[in-house]
């Protein structure tokens, strides 16, 4: 039975490899006459610059988003009903409307008129700053919801024990609830970071010169085809795959722990 399964697997692998090979061959062959990899090499500085910008935007939004997510979670658990409702309202609004709309509206209509001048005067470029801010808010709303679910899944006895040993409200969260909640949702948080990295490409609509923006400039400027899109895909995969693997790894580890 093992032997037969092995042969079946091998056959399937050969068939899949053959089909994919034929497909790639057809596509790349047809496009080969228009594909000139040296053009991508010429633009490597710009592409690299964009990739670095994407990396820093995603990292900054990751940190800010996490802080905003924590605040959303705490806000929704506040004793003050007004704070709870406000947080809930903002969070639903952010989650249930498209990021693209937040970016266009938030930047051109609200934040740029308010902040572009003072930021510019201080020598800052307002676009990436406001872009990161909106991206952080959007992802903070998702993280806030993930964290709230995790915190609410911590059993009552842990809250009681934490209060019984004399922790104040902040210490209860800091030393008992959040460490346990984070362990539970680390895979989900890692998964949402993958979305964040991909979503950072939307910042091109407000003119942030990130990876997608620069690649698109390269493509439209040189009529590039595959030599533009292949590096783009690889560039994003280099960022997202490790995080996705981390998410799977954490998930497996967590399953073993419980």
């Amino acid at each position, binding site marked *: 039975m093992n032997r037969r399964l092995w042969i079946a697997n091998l056959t399937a692998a050969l068939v899949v490899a053959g089909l994919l090979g034929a497909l790639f061959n057809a596509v790349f062959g047809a496009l080969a006459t228009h594909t000139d990899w040296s053009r991508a090499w010429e633009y490597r500085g710009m592409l690299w610059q964009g990739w670095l910008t994407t990396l820093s935007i995603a990292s900054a939004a990751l940190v800010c988003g996490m802080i905003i997510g924590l605040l959303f979670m705490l806000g929704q658990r506040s004793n003050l009903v007004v704070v709870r409702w406000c947080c809930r309202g903002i969070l639903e609004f952010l989650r249930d409307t498209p990021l693209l709309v937040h970016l266009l509206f938030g930047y051109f209509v609200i934040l740029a008129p308010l902040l572009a001048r003072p930021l510019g005067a201080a020598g800052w470029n307002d676009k990436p700053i406001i872009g990161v801010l909106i991206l952080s808010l959007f992802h903070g709303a998702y993280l806030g919801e993930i964290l709230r679910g995790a915190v609410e899944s911590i059993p009552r006895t*842990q809250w009681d024990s934490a*209060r*019984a040993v*004399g922790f*104040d409200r902040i210490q209860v969260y800091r030393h008992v609830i959040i460490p346990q909640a984070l362990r539970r949702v680390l895979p989900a948080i890692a998964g949402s970071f993958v979305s964040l990295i991909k979503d950072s490409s939307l910042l091109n609509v407000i003119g942030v010169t990130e990876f997608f923006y620069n690649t698109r400039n390269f493509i439209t400027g040189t009529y590039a085809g595959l030599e533009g899109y292949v590096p783009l895909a690889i560039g994003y995969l280099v960022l997202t795959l490790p995080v996705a693997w981390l998410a799977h790894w954490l998930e497996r580890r967590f399953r073993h722990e419980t």
Partner: protein
Amino acid sequence: MKLEVDQLVKRYGGTTALDSLTLRVADARVLALIGPSGGGKSTLLRVLGGLETPDSGTVMVNSRPLPAGEVGLIPYRRRNGFLFQQFNLFPHLTALENIALPLEKAHGLDRGAARDTASAALGRFGLSSHAHKLPAQLSGGQQQRVGIARAVAHQPEVLFLDEPTSALDPEMTAEVLELVQELAEAGQHIVLSTHEMGFAREVADEVAFIADGRVAEHAPPARFFNEPASPDSSRFLSRVMRW
């Protein structure tokens, strides 16, 4: 330990957990609360331990009134110790860290002193070999003993134990009760609820029988177990002693 509980009322939605409960203990080292499930023992302990605020009534522990708000209750809880039926330990911390962290963060010891005190507390109850294990790696009885070690590490004025052995098998029950007895003999003031009648009889100075949110009877164990005065308590005793 002196307790003066007057007209204590605690409601949860429609249910009245404590129904004008009054209890006066002039001077006892160990007070045992016994009675049927749902009678209000846990609720009384939670109020006495500063984990729950009553709807009305007054509580004086050692002649001092129980602080009113959550902020005032924090120092009160730090002064005392509390152990629940189970899941007392923080699962992400080792036995040692479970004891050291509150000493450091709630009692203001520096890190080294907190760890030394925690080690000493574990050593006192023969738990040193478990210091670096996570709660999931300990048996239920060991978890409760670490829980007690944590609750007494800062030398609490009163130790509150809510059915500390109800979730354990007989052997583990014995190991935990022995520890509680040891503490009592060392002079620790204890208020506990328990279904272990033999333990209450032997170790407690006073027994309060609690049913329907009131103290139905309050007496020294010898009198309570030999000649229960109220019909409720004699019915309860004849039922639990039957097997």
